[in-house]
C-alpha cells in the first residue's frame, strides 16, 4: 500500500456487502411489482426444424392466462450482437428452430404453474430437418444448411485469415517445427443467479422498464429497443444486484425481449425466471474450439513464427463468436516474443445452443495450447521450462507481430517470482512421484478496442441533499466490487473517505452511457472516467463557491470534504453545507481511449492503451489409483499496474483460478444429439469448496502511466493461464500430454494405467455374448429400430403433474394410504431424490406419502447381535453415532461420503437404497428402456457412457450408485419391509433385481435395515471415486475382512456404481481367502473384481478404477 494515497491500495469491503450478507440485497429474482404476471417459455424439442405454425389459441383460454406470444408477434428484426453483418437471430424463432431449447412461444399468467400448464397446450407444427452437431460435420459438403448466408461457405459465420510478418519464411528457416492439435469441450458460466427479467410497459407514454441482471445495460438497451422496434429513449434499465456474470450476462438474454413483449400484450408487468435446466439449455455457453498450433523454432529456442488454425463452434446463432476469433488471434500473435504470426480462424454454425462469452473469451484455451507447446519446445531443446519462458517473455519496448507496442511489462519478473514461490529451483530435481509443477503466462490488452463503443466511458457525480456524493456508472457490478473501486477513485481524487460516497450502477436514466463490464475493461476505462469526472466535479464545486464568495476559484481549497478560502472562517463549508447553499447538483464527464483503431480487416495495430501480464505456477498431485488431480498450490503473479483494492483484486484472482481449475479438470457440458445431458449442478461439475487449493497472489506494481492511478485491467487475468499451468503440471506428474480439455480423472487413468491390460474374462458372465452381439447391432439396426418402435408403442414420458402430499399419523396409516387402489402413490422418505425426480418426470405420482417423521421408522436399536436402523433415519444421524462407528466403521465413514452435508441432514437410509438411477439420458427425459419399457433402446450404448455400468448390464446400462447398497451388501444386512400383510425380510443380495429395481412392492415401506454385529475381529473399508466430493460414485468398493488371529477367515467385497445391482466380487473374495495376502496376491485378487466385465465404448477406465479401488480397500483392511 502506498502512503501517497488516501484510499487507493486499501482493502475496501464492497459497498453492497451488508445488504448481501443479510439477505436484503434485491436481485432480479427478488423484485416484484403489483399486478405482476409470471411468464414461461416454450422451447424447441428439435435441434433443427421448420416451424409450419404455432397455435396459441388454446393457451389463451387456459386458466389464469393473460397473454401469449410467438415469433411472428415480434417485429421482423434480428439482434445485432457482434455487429450488423453477423445478425442472424430473431427475438423468438420465426420459421425455423436451430437448437434444442430455442424459444418458440411464451405465455404470461397469474401464476407460474398456470403459465407452465398453458405451454403444454400450445400446438407447434414442426417439420424436423437433419441436424449437425460437430464443426467438422457442419463444414461437410452435404451438411444441412443452418442459415442461408450466401456470401460464406456453408455453415460458416465468419472467416478470419491474417498473417503478421513472413510466417512462411519463419517455418522455412526453422530448425524445429512443432505441430499439434488441441480441443476442448463446452464450459458454461454457471452464475449462481440464473437469468431472469421483470418487464413493465407503461401504455400511457410507451415506456418499457426492465429489471434484469446484465453486465451491460448499455448494450441490452440498444438490443431490446432494436428488436422490439422501440425508440431507445423509451427503454429504461433499472439497477439491480447481480448474482455473478463471468461473461454469461454480457449480451441481451432472450427472455428480456420476450417478457417485454408479453408485458406489452398483457398491459401488466411480467416476470420470467429461468430455472437451472433452462439456463443450461438456452443460456449461452463458452464456445467449443479446436486449435492447431504450429511453432517454428530456431536451434537456440527463438520463436521464429507461430501459426494457429482455429475452428470455433458458434452454435446456432452468432453472439460473441467474432470476439472469440479476435481474442484467440491476439494470444497467438502476442504471447511471448515471436517473430511472425499467422492465424486462420473459422466460426462454424452447429445445431447446438449458441456460444456466448465466458471469462477469458477463449484465451484460457489458446494459452493452454500454446503453453503446452512451449513446454514441449523446452523439453526438446533440453531447456529448463521456467528459464526458457523467462528468456522469451515479452518485454517493455517490444513491438509484437500484430503491432502491439508493449509499454510497462513485468512478465519476466512475474515468471521469476512464480518460480521462486512454487520452489522450482529446489523441487525440479527432486519431484516426488505423481507430483508435477507447471507454468504459464498471459497477456491481456487493457483495454482492447473490440467495439467502437468500447473506447469510452462516462461517469456522473451527484452532490446529494445530505452532502453525500453519488457516483453513477452504467457499467454493472456483478459482484466484482467495481462499484467500490469506482468510489475509491472518486474519493481519492477529491480527498474524501469512501463512506460519503455511494455508487449507483446500471440505471440508464440516472447514469450516463458506458459499454458495461466485459473484457476486464471497467477498472481501466470507467476508472479513468471516474477520475476525470471527479476533477470536473471539483472544478464545478469550486467555481460555484467562487461566485458565491466572490473570490478567485484558484484560491479555494477543497480537502477532507471541506471547502475553504484561506483562513477565512466565514468562507468555510462542509459538503452538506454546500448542498444546502447550492442545492444538489450533478456533473458528468467522459473518458476516451485515444488510440488509432487497428486495421479492421487484418486486426494489425497497437491495440490498447496498455497491456497486462501475469504468470502462474501450479503444483499438482495425481492419485494413480483414481486419476484424480489435487491442486496443492497455485501461485499467481500479476503485473497489474497498480492495485486499487487488494481485497477485490485478490478475490478476482482466486475466483478466476478456481474457475480455471474447473475448466482444466472437470467442467464440460456434454451434448447428445444437440441436447445437454448434464444440465444440472451435480453432473456439471463446477468446483466446490473441497477443491480449493492454497493460492498465493502477488502483484507487481508497474504503475502504468496510462492507467487510473497506474492500474491496468484485471478481471480475466487470473483464469487465462490457469488451465495451461495445470495441464503442464499434470504432464510432469503423469509423463503424458493431454490435448483435450478438460483433462478428467478418467483420461488420466486411461493414459497412465498399467500397460498390461486387465484380463476381463467376459465369458465368465452369462448373457455377455448376447449383450455384446446386441451392442454390435446397435448403431445400424437396434438403436434406430428401437427408437422408432419405442416412439410408437413405448411408455410416454410422464407428464409433470401436481401431487397431493400427505403425512400419515403412523405406519399403519401410511400403509393404508399405499393400499388404496387406483391411485399412483409414492413413498417419500427424505425426498431429496423423489421431489427432483417428480419434476424431471422419472417418477409418476398423484400422491406422496411422507414417512420421514414416523416413529416406527425412526430410531436405532443395538442389541447383542445386531444393529437395527429405522428406515427414516437420516444419513447424518447414522454418521454421527459413535457406537455405530465403533462397531461398523465402514457404515459411518462410507455414509459420510454420501452427497453433501445438507442432503445428509434430510436423506434417509431407506431413500438412499430406493433412489432412481442416475443415468443422464434417463434423467434428461430420453425415452429409453428404463423410461419407456422394452420397446425402447438404451441410450448409453451409443451415447456418452463414461459413468455407466461395466458389469452385468443388459438392456439398461445405468449403474446402481446408492453408496448404501455396496456397504450394506458387504455387511450382509437384511432389509425389513412392512406391507399390508405384515413384515418381510429381504437379504441385501435379493434386494435388487434385473436392472436395479428394488424388490419392495409399491404397497410396502422399508421399515428398517438390520445389520449383524460381528463376533470376531474384522476390518472394513469403503473406497469411492466420484467426480467431486459429494457427487455420485463412478465406482466404489466396500470390503470387510474377518480375522481369526492373523489368519483371514472371511472376505466380503461388494462393488458399487459399476453394475445395475450392487454385487459381491466372489472370485476376488475366494482368491484372497486362499492366498498368502502378499502384495502380488492382493493385486491379483483385486483384478478378479472385474472378471466378466463388458465395458461400453468410453468407460473402460472404470475397470482399472474398480481394480485399483478394490486393491486400495483390501490393503487398508489388512493394514488396520
Amino acid at each position, binding site marked *: 500500500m502506498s502512503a501517497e494515497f488516501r484510499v487507493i491500495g486499501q482493502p475496501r*469491503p464492497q459497498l453492497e456487502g451488508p445488504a448481501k450478507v443479510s439477505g436484503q440485497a434485491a436481485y432480479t429474482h427478488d423484485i416484484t411489482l403489483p399486478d405482476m404476471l409470471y411468464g414461461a417459455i416454450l422451447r424447441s424439442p428439435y435441434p433443427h426444424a421448420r416451424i409450419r405454425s404455432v397455435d396459441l389459441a388454446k393457451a389463451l383460454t387456459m386458466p389464469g392466462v393473460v397473454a401469449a406470444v410467438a415469433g411472428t408477434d415480434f417485429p421482423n428484426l434480428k439482434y445485432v450482437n457482434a455487429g450488423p453483418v453477423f445478425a442472424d437471430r430473431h427475438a423468438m424463432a420465426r420459421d425455423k428452430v436451430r437448437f434444442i431449447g430455442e424459444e418458440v412461444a411464451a405465455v404470461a399468467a397469474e401464476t407460474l404453474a398456470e403459465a407452465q400448464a398453458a405451454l403444454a397446450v400450445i400446438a407447434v407444427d414442426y417439420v424436423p430437418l437433419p441436424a449437425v452437431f460437430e464443426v467438422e460435420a457442419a463444414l461437410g459438403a452435404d451438411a444441412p444448411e443452418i442459415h442461408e448466408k450466401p456470401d460464406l461457405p456453408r455453415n460458416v459465420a465468419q472467416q478470419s485469415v491474417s498473417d503478421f510478418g513472413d510466417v512462411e519464411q519463419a517455418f522455412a528457416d526453422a530448425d524445429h517445427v512443432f505441430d499439434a492439435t488441441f480441443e476442448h469441450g463446452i464450459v458454461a458460466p454457471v452464475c449462481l443467479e440464473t437469468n431472469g427479467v421483470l418487464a413493465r410497459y407503461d401504455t400511457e407514454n410507451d415506456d418499457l422498464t426492465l429489471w434484469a441482471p446484465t453486465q451491460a445495460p448499455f448494450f441490452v438497451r440498444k438490443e431490446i429497443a432494436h428488436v422490439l422496434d422501440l425508440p431507445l429513449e423509451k427503454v429504461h434499465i433499472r439497477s439491480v444486484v447481480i448474482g455473478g456474470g463471468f461473461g454469461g450476462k454480457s449480451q441481451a438474454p432472450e427472455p428480456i425481449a420476450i417478457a417485454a413483449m408479453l408485458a406489452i400484450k398483457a398491459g401488466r408487468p411480467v416476470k420470467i425466471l429461468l430455472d437451472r435446466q433452462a439456463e443450461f439449455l438456452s443460456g449461452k455457453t463458452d464456445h467449443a474450439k479446436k486449435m492447431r498450433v504450429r511453432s517454428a523454432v530456431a536451434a537456440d529456442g527463438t520463436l521464429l513464427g507461430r501459426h494457429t488454425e482455429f475452428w470455433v463452434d458458434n452454435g446456432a446463432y452468432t453472439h460473441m463468436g467474432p470476439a472469440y476469433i479476435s481474442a484467440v488471434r491476439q494470444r497467438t500473435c502476442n504471447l511471448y516474443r515471436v517473430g511472425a504470426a499467422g492465424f486462420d480462424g473459422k466460426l462454424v454454425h452447429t445445431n447446438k445452443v449458441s456460444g456466448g462469452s465466458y471469462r477469458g473469451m477463449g484465451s484460457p484455451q489458446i494459452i493452454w495450447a500454446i503453453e503446452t507447446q512451449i513446454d514441449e519446445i523446452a523439453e526438446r531443446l533440453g531447456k529448463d521450462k521456467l528459464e526458457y519462458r523467462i528468456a522469451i517473455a515479452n518485454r517493455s519496448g517490444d513491438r509484437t507481430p500484430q503491432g502491439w507496442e508493449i509499454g510497462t511489462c513485468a512478465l519476466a519478473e512475474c515468471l521469476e517470482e512464480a518460480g521462486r514461490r512454487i520452489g522450482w529451483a529446489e523441487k525440479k530435481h527432486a519431484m516426488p512421484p505423481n507430483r508435477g509443477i507447471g507454468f504459464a503466462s498471459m497477456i491481456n490488452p487493457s483495454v482492447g478496442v473490440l467495439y467502437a463503443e468500447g473506447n469510452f466511458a462516462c461517469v456522473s457525480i451527484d452532490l446529494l441533499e445530505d452532502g453525500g456524493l453519488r457516483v453513477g456508472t452504467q457499467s454493472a457490478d456483478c459482484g466484482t466490487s467495481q462499484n467500490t473501486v469506482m468510489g475509491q477513485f472518486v474519493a481519492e481524487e477529491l480527498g474524501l473517505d469512501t463512506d460519503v460516497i455511494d455508487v449507483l450502477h446500471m440505471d440508464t436514466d440516472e447514469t450516463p452511457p458506458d459499454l458495461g463490464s466485459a473484457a476486464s475493461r471497467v477498472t481501466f476505462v470507467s476508472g479513468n472516467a471516474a477520475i476525470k469526472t471527479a476533477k470536473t466535479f471539483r472544478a464545478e464545486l469550486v467555481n460555484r463557491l467562487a461566485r458565491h464568495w466572490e473570490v478567485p476559484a484558484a484560491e479555494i481549497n477543497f480537502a477532507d470534504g471541506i471547502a475553504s478560502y484561506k483562513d477565512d472562517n466565514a468562507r468555510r463549508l462542509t459538503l452538506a453545507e454546500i448542498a444546502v447553499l447550492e442545492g444538489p447538483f450533478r456533473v458528468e464527464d467522459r473518458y476516451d481511449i485515444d488510440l488509432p483503431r487497428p486495421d479492421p480487416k487484418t486486426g494489425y495495430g497497437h491495440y490498447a492503451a496498455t497491456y497486462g501480464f501475469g504468470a502462474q505456477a501450479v503444483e499438482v498431485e495425481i492419485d494413480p489409483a483414481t486419476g484424480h488431480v489435487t491442486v496443492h498450490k497455485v501461485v499467481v503473479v500479476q503485473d497489474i499496474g497498480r492495485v486499487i483494492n487488494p481485497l477485490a483484486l485478490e478475490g478476482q484472482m482466486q475466483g478466476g483460478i478456481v474457475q480455471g481449475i474447473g475448466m482444466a479438470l472437470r467442467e464440460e457440458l456434454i451434448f447428445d444429439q444437440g441436447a445437454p445431458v448434464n444440465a444440472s*449442478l451435480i453432473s456439471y461439475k463446477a468446483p466446490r469448496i473441497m477443491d480449493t487449493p492454497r493460492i498465493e497472489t502477488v502483484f507487481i506494481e508497474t504503475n502504468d502511466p496510462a492507467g487510473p492511478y497506474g492500474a491496468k485491467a484485471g478481471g480475466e487475468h487470473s483464469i487465462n493461464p490457469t488451465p495451461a499451468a495445470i495441464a503442464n503440471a499434470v504432464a510432469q506428474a503423469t509423463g503424458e500430454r493431454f490435448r483435450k480439455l478438460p483433462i478428467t480423472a478418467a483420461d488420466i487413468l486411461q493414459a497412465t494405467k498399467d500397460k498390461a491390460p486387465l484380463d476381463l474374462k467376459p465369458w465368465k458372465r452369462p448373457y455377455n455374448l448376447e449383450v455384446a452381439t446386441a451392442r454390435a447391432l446397435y448403431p445400424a439396426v437396434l438403436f434406430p429400430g428401437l427408437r422408432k418402435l419405442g416412439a410408437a408403442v413405448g411408455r410416454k414420458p410422464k407428464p409433470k403433474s401436481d401431487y397431493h402430499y400427505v403425512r400419515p399419523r403412523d405406519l399403519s396409516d401410511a400403509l393404508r394410504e399405499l393400499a388404496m387402489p387406483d391411485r399412483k402413490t409414492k413413498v417419500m422418505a427424505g425426498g431429496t431424490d423423489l421431489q427432483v425426480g417428480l419434476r424431471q418426470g422419472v417418477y409418476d405420482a398423484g400422491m406422496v406419502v411422507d414417512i420421514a417423521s414416523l416413529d416406527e421408522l425412526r430410531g436405532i436399536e443395538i442389541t447383542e447381535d445386531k444393529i437395527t436402523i429405522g428406515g427414516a433415519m437420516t444419513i447424518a444421524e447414522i454418521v454421527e453415532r459413535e457406537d455405530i462407528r465403533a462397531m461398523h466403521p465402514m457404515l459411518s465413514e462410507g455414509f459420510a461420503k454420501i452427497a453433501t452435508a445438507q442432503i445428509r441432514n434430510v436423506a434417509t437410509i431407506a431413500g438412499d437404497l430406493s433412489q432412481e438411477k442416475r443415468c443422464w439420458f434417463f434423467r434428461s427425459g430420453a425415452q429409453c428402456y428404463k423410461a419407456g419399457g422394452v420397446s425402447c433402446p438404451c441410450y448409453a450404448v451409443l451415447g456418452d457412457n463414461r459413468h455407466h455400468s461395466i458389469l452385468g448390464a443388459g438392456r439398461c446400462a445405468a449403474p446402481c450408485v446408492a453408496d448404501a447398497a455396496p456397504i450394506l451388501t458387504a455387511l450382509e444386512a437384511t432389509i425389513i419391509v412392512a406391507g399390508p400383510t405384515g413384515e418381510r425380510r429381504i437379504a441385501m443380495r435379493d434386494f435388487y433385481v434385473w436392472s436395479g429395481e428394488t424388490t419392495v412392492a409399491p404397497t410396502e415401506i422399508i421399515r428398517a435395515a438390520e445389520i449383524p454385529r460381528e463376533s470376531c475381529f474384522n476390518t472394513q473399508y469403503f473406497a469411492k471415486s466420484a467426480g467431486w466430493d459429494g457427487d455420485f460414485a463412478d465406482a466404489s468398493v466396500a470390503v470387510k475382512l474377518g480375522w481369526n488371529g492373523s489368519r483371514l477367515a472371511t472376505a466380503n467385497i461388494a462393488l458399487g456404481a459399476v453394475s445395475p445391482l450392487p454385487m459381491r466380487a466372489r472370485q476376488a473374495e475366494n482368491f484372497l481367502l486362499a492366498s498368502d495376502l502378499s502384495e502380488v496376491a492382493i493385486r491379483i485378487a483385486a483384478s478378479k473384481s472385474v472378471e466378466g466385465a463388458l465395458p461400453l465404448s468410453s468407460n473402460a477406465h472404470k475397470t482399472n478404477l474398480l481394480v485399483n479401488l478394490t486393491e486400495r480397500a483390501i490393503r487398508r483392511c489388512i493394514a488396520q
Partner: protein
Amino acid sequence: MAKIQIHVNGLKHDTDCDPATPLAVFLREEMNLRGTKIGCGNGECGACTVAMSGRAVCSCLVPLGRTVGHHIETIESLGGPDDLHPIQRKLVERGAFQCGFCTPGVVMSLITLLRRNPKPTDTDIRVALQGNLCRCSGYVKLLETISEIVREGLHER
C-alpha cells in the same frame, strides 16, 4: 385444505398453502423472506440453505408439510444490514463473497456448523460447506475468514 402451522424465525404462522410446496418457495413468495435464494431448486447448490431444528437443509427440497414441529431459521433471523451479526460483519470486511447470491446459504450452513461444533477443523468446515456452490469467490477468502471467525470466537459472542 387443512391449515399448517409453521414456525419461522421465532414466530408461528398459520397457512393454508399446499403442503407439497417447497419451503424455499413458501418463504420467498408467501412470507416475503427473500434472503433465501434459489439457485437450482434441486438440492444441488445450497443457495436455499436454512436451519431446520438446528440442521442445515436445502429448503428447496423440504416440503412445507414436513416442517410441522420444526423450527425454521432463515438468514433474516440474523442481523439486518445495519446490525449485522459479528460473523456477517467479518465476512463483509474480509471480502469473503462477491456477488453474494450464495451468501445467505453459506451463512446458514456456517451458523449451524458453529453451533454444533464451535471449534471446527479445516476439514469440518469444508465438509459443512461442500453443498454450497459459490462460483465467484473460489472459496479462498471464505475459508480464511471462517478460520478467523473460529479463532476469534465471534460465533460465541
